[in-house]
């Protein structure tokens, strides 16, 4: 069997809104059956990339193939093969839960009997049985999101696009959504998501493209990114500026890299236990001193000099 072609492929993908360059000539390939994430702060261009993939905004230049179809030439066919969960809730508030699914199924030309069968399956899978005939208004945030995902799956798409799937959800609802995403990956669905949450990216994604200001600034598996961009461990300190300076001077030889933020000093190292002990031994008045393993947040800090949120 020949090597599989990527299921989504972008070449020199560019999007301008007037003078603003929202997406700046990026390339990426996504393999079938994986979960690919675009990680970056708000305004990085993630949603614009998604919208180009699901054909609600045209490319300014470049090429984009989804399921081997050109998004500019075969819009309807591209959209027939994918499911989309938009960032803002786009449920139909004039309809109840079941009708949201049935009416959506019609847009894909499912027959009424197919639609009903599929809708019942999805209501089951997303545990919305109690709310079957309720108006969408009465659903909790987590249920609404689940219904949106259910709706996006009505056509059995092989690609599911999730734009910020857990933004605005409480922790329990987030975990529920993630669990469902894992099940979908196991069923062979390719997941494409955007997020500005580290934990979400780490939990779900096989590969990540880190985006900032319309560009992809790093790409790889979450683990690869952490390993290649930063030292494995971090000592995090909250203290007054002069103490932070003193610490930096004293332990400079143990520190591979550091980030001085407005509220914290981050020291990247290979041996956090020793570094921690040495700093502790200085007996300075510190508000916080803790060690942790490096995360994607650190990767992002290193790459952009800024945090992901805020």
């Amino acid at each position: 069997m020949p090597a599989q072609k990527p299921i989504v492929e972008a070449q020199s993908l560019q999007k301008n809104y007037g003078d603003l360059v929202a997406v700046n000539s990026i390339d990426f390939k996504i393999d079938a059956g994986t979960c690919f994430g675009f990680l970056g702060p708000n305004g990085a261009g993630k949603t614009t990339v998604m919208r180009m993939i699901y054909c609600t905004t045209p490319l300014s230049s470049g090429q984009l193939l989804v399921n081997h179809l050109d998004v500019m030439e075969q819009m309807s066919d591209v959209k027939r093969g994918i499911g989309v969960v938009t960032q803002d809730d786009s449920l139909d508030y004039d309809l109840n839960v079941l009708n949201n699914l049935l009416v959506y199924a019609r847009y894909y030309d499912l027959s009424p009997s197919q639609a009903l069968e599929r809708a019942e399956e999805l209501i089951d899978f997303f545990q919305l049985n109690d709310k079957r005939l309720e108006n969408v208004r009465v659903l909790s945030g987590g249920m609404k999101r689940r219904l949106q995902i259910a709706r996006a799956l009505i056509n059995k798409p092989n690609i599911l696009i999730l734009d910020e799937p857990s933004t605005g959800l409480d922790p329990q609802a987030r975990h529920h959504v993630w669990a469902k995403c894992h099940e979908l990956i196991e069923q062979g669905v390719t997941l494409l998501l955007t997020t500005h949450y580290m934990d979400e990216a780490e939990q779900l994604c096989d590969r990540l493209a880190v985006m900032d200001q319309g560009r992809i600034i790093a790409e790889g598996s979450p683990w690869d990114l952490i390993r290649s961009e930063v030292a494995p461990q971090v000592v995090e300190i909250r203290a007054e500026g002069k103490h932070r300076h003193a610490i930096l001077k004293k332990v400079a030889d143990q520190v591979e890299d550091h980030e001085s933020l407005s509220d914290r000093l981050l020291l990247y190292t290979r041996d956090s236990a020793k570094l921690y002990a040495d700093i502790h031994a200085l007996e300075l008045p510190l508000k916080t001193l803790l060690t942790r393993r490096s995360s994607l947040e650190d990767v992002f800090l290193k790459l952009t000099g800024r945090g992901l949120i805020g």
Partner: protein
Amino acid sequence: MTTPRVSIRAARRVWQRNATVYKRTWKLNILPNFFEPFLYLLGMGIGLGTYINEMEGLRYIEFIAPGLLISSIMWGATLETTYNVFVKMNFDRIYDGILSTPVNPKDLALGELLWGATRGSLYGGAFFSILFLFGMGYHCGILLMVPLLFIIGFLFATIGLLFTSLIKEIELFNYFFTLFLTPLFLFSGIFFPLSEMPALVQQIAWFTPLYHGVELSRGIFLQQWGWDLFWHFIWILGVTTVNTLVVLKLIHRRLYH
């Protein structure tokens, strides 16, 4: 870039979505459509008609009824493609959901036009049935009104959607209704014949949609068959076609950029 062709099937899906929503509340919705003509005919036709004995040789109620019927289509169809479309497009985000399916912006626009025409026809149909009660329109030629209800509904749906596709603030609809539709309602020959008006008024009227609908409807109701009816019909068809092409393009640009 090639713009995909309009899919009638996808447009029908959008129409069906609206019909599904309407089905839930149609009984509540449709009742006022019957009261409104009844009140108009009672108040203006009989009330005012007591003082106006005759208009162009007709009882006043018979003079105004065919035109009022057309104006009810106008209100019904435009209400649908102005406020309702604007809310679906900008507040409820329903279109975001629809456009990520195989339905494209032009299909969506066509679906809304068909639905606007349907709502207009329902308004007109209700009015029509009340006219029957008042004893008007008992002849075979009246059957021509059936397709006409829908065509005129479609015409006004395109006019409403045209305006909607151009504005960003919902408040601007006040201008559309007060400065465009209300003058049409008053000066399209529904309540008094335009032939008595200055030539300029008549010339302006020729360029407006309601006038042609009113003339056509009155001609059919009173069985005044003639070429002028044909030309009114051609005017309506022509403007509807041009409007449709323009509005599909505008909505495409508005929703896909």
